[in-house]
């Protein structure tokens, strides 16, 4: 393994700016690692190595630009984000050869900051799944144990980080899709506050829940990426127009956890939680207390309704969001349709996988006349109650902590036949999307039974990313390094 790819983003960036490593060397190191690991991991879809090398060479010619926080850094983008000139499939056959002529805002901002896109990351089709097994192209394997899933839906992004193929990846999180794979792959994954990062160019799943965030090997790396992608975008009406703090500078302002109160919701630490996850997370909480944090019990009594509420809202929105994939203007069009209705039905039946079709059908059902009030309206009401629940909890604490997922990564195929059990994997992550607040998964240990990474989830009030990242940074530095790239 090249020593370069063991560096964190922050380290490689320093070397690049100092001229000790060229952009071409950084890109080559990643491409070599991809060549070596990708046959096993299958984390990536479209690869853009040639263009990446070309761009890196041009950048090297001009010399390092210290004003660019990601100058020369190779990155991978989840395939749900539109990348100009690079095939963007969203993990679906229906967009098999789709090449956007525009960049997602978050992608454009990364480029503007000097990042070099080397590939697109595999994902569950349309971000619907918790394991990446719903990708229409390939199942990504967990670099920590190839027989296990990397989590999902940003499983390609998590695996590419854990395999040392790049220094940062963008993921998206609608119900836990950044935090779950971060937890399973042993990397840092941040879901920002809803509205913190522009969704423009992200192929929508659940528009009121979707948020883009970084997946990296360290907290500081995530802070660096978030600094770049956060902020108001006039092309996204739901992006919030408020000042973006400098998250990196903020990290230096805190060296311990004194004065911080961490809430521990009883609903997250009880039934259904595997013993190894519980133990690793409890150890991390103990460490936080040693570092000066105070812990208090809090109540999130609406947690039991989270999954039902989430699936009504997300599927309702998805059923409408996915209507544009109709075979008329772009994407897969059935070759044997005789009339219009036939064209729609066949194109969509052929183009969408089972899980996507399941969610479209459920979403269509909950919005239909006579059911709308009973499902969608009720779910929207519960969503408001959940927000009250969280706001109340945050009156007595600065952050809330719990496990990111009830278990560590499980074997490929274990839950594919049981969608309900699969949906339960999101139990700890889903509430935050419904209330729009930020959360992250931090690797805090290795499960004693499965020998797989365990992620601790930290949650903060809306736009409280600074405190959350500060605490995670302090905790990370006092724990062993769990996020070194894996030997494959």
């Amino acid at each position: 393994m090249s020593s370069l790819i063991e560096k964190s983003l922050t380290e490689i960036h320093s070397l690049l700016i100092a001229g000790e490593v060229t952009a071409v060397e950084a890109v080559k190191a990643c491409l070599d690692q991809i060549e070596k690991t990708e046959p096993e991991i299958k984390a990536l879809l479209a690869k853009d190595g040639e263009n990446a090398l070309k761009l890196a060479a041009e950048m090297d010619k001009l010399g390092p630009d210290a004003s660019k926080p990601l100058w020369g850094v190779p990155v991978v983008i989840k395939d749900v984000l539109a990348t100009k000139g690079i095939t963007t499939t969203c993990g679906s056959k229906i967009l098999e050869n789709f090449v956007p002529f525009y960049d997602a805002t978050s992608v454009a901002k990364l480029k503007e900051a000097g990042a070099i896109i080397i590939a697109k990351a595999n994902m569950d089709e349309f971000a619907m799944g918790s394991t990446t097994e719903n990708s229409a192209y390939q199942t990504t394997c967990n670099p920590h144990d190839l027989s296990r899933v990397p989590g999902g839906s940003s499983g390609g992004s998590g695996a590419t980080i854990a395999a040392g193929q790049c220094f940062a990846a963008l993921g998206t999180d609608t119900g836990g899709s950044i935090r779950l794979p971060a937890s399973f792959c042993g990397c840092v994954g941040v879901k920002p506050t809803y509205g913190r990062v522009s969704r423009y160019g992200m192929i929508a799943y659940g528009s009121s829940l979707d948020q883009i965030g970084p997946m990296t090997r360290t907290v500081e790396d995530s802070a660096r990426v978030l600094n770049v992608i956060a902020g108001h975008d006039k092309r996204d009406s739901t992006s919030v127009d408020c000042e973006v703090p400098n998250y990196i500078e903020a990290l230096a302002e805190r060296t311990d956890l004194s004065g911080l109160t961490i809430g521990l919701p009883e609903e997250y630490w009880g039934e259904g939680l595997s013993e190894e996850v519980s133990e690793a997370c409890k150890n991390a909480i103990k460490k936080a207390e040693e570092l000066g944090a105070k812990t208090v019990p809090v109540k999130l009594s609406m947690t039991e309704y989270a999954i039902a509420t989430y699936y009504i809202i997300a599927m309702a929105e998805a059923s409408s969001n996915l209507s544009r994939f109709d075979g008329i203007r772009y994407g897969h069009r059935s070759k044997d349709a005789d009339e219009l209705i036939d064209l729609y039905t066949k194109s969509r039946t052929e183009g969408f996988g089972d899980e996507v079709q399941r969610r479209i059908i459920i979403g269509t059902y909950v919005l239909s006349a006579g059911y709308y009030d009973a499902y969608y309206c009720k779910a929207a009401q519960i969503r408001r109650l959940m927000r009250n629940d969280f706001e109340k909890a945050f009156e007595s604490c600065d952050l809330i902590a719990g496990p990111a997922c009830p278990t560590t990564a499980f074997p490929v195929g274990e839950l594919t036949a049981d969608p309900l059990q699969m949906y339960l994997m999101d139990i700890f992550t889903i509430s935050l999307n419904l209330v729009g607040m930020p959360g992250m998964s931090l690797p805090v240990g290795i499960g004693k039974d499965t020998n797989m990474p365990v992620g601790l989830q930290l949650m903060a009030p809306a736009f409280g990313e600074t405190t959350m990242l500060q605490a995670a940074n302090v905790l990370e530095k006092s724990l062993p390094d769990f996020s070194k790239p894996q030997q494959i």
Partner: protein
Amino acid sequence: MVQFETVIGLEVHAQLKTNTKIFCGCSTQFGKEPNENVCEVCSGMPGVLPVLNEKVMEYAAKMGLATNCIINKKSIFARKNYFYPDLPKGYQISQFELPICEHGHLNISYEDKSGEPCKKRIGVTRIHMEEDAGKNIHSVAENASFVDLNRTGVPLIEIVSEPDMRNAEEAVAYLKSLRSILLYLDICDGNLEEGSFRCDVNISVRPFGQEEFGTRAELKNINSFRNVHKAIHYEVARQIDLIEDGEKIIQETRLYDADKGTTHSMRGKADAHDYRYFPDPDLVPLVIADEWLAEWQAAQPELPAERKVRFEEDFKISEDDADFLTAEKDIADYYEAVLDSYNEPKKVANWIKGDFMKELNQSEVGLSECKFKPEMMATLVEMVDKDVISNKIGKDIFNEIFTAGLDPAKFVKDKGLEQNSDSSSLEAAVDKVLADNPNEVEAYKGGKKKLVSFFMGQVMKETKGQANPGIVSKMIQQKLS
């Protein structure tokens, strides 16, 4: 026999005259090559998001203010879901619960079938904002269908009335009034044929005295006020026939066929459709600040109803004339511009209502392109009024000077058309006419006094219409007495 009452409610879609589309920066210009005014947003590419053009909200609110609506401080965009090739996202962004304007009304005046002037208040249920769809084009020659997305995302307001109208006259008066207000506000060009002003007619019948409504049909595809009239008459008769035959009216959408003057059922698309409306998560609720509303209110132009009252009071013209002159903003503007040059309101009004409108309607160009400027009109009216030319000459030359935009004074002078009031030359003409028509002179003397107009006509012929009719008439009567 049972007498039936007609119940009509109208839905009007008005295309707003914004420069750019409702949710993206594409031009709204009409007549471009197919798919020229299209970007990733209005073509529904993956991942794109809508951003509201604030002009649309302003225009919608202005229409609401002009129709006495309550402007909701908070309104919500919703998705109306259905599949059609001209709808790229698979849903139309519209408003459902909480539209921008509600609970308004409009006062209309019209003449009923017997010509009696009537007045009525029609309720405006709501006005909401939405995006237009594109156009499907089917080519028989190529055996293929095409989609043009230029119109996709052009802003519309839908104005929904209460079912307050009881006959075609009321319906047309309401539509004309709405259109007039849109033109006064300068937010829609009101063109029925090109589809910038579209109306759907909801229509049902019920026995007089019955309180609940009958089953309604919705008529679409009506592209002129005359056809609104015809379509309503046809549909009322159809529904009454069905009921009298003991059959049931089906709630459905029917298309008007202008060639046949009939309506027929439109199967498929719109019927039995569940649009699954829900709030659009991509657009935050629209909140209208008090100061914006105050600003728009202050900037409201004079509307037709106010202008009509002013015309009656300031110009002392009849209510009918005022009604006619103010119905269209550009006509009213023209009228006032003529008065600026020659302040004879009644006489100018007569010319505008008569020859001017006749020529304008025939010329098929709008008033804005009309070459006959208000000062020219003023000169003409003044020349007739002051006997420089006869009324007849004025009418005779009108087509030519109107079409070419000629100065009437110069035209009359060049052609030597001034009225002849010179008694010696007129006397010669009168004498000639009397000498040429001895039988008629005999008859006149025998008591057929009506023949004076015959002699007048002959003298006019003799003088090429330039004789001063007052002088000639007196002269004839003197000579024959």
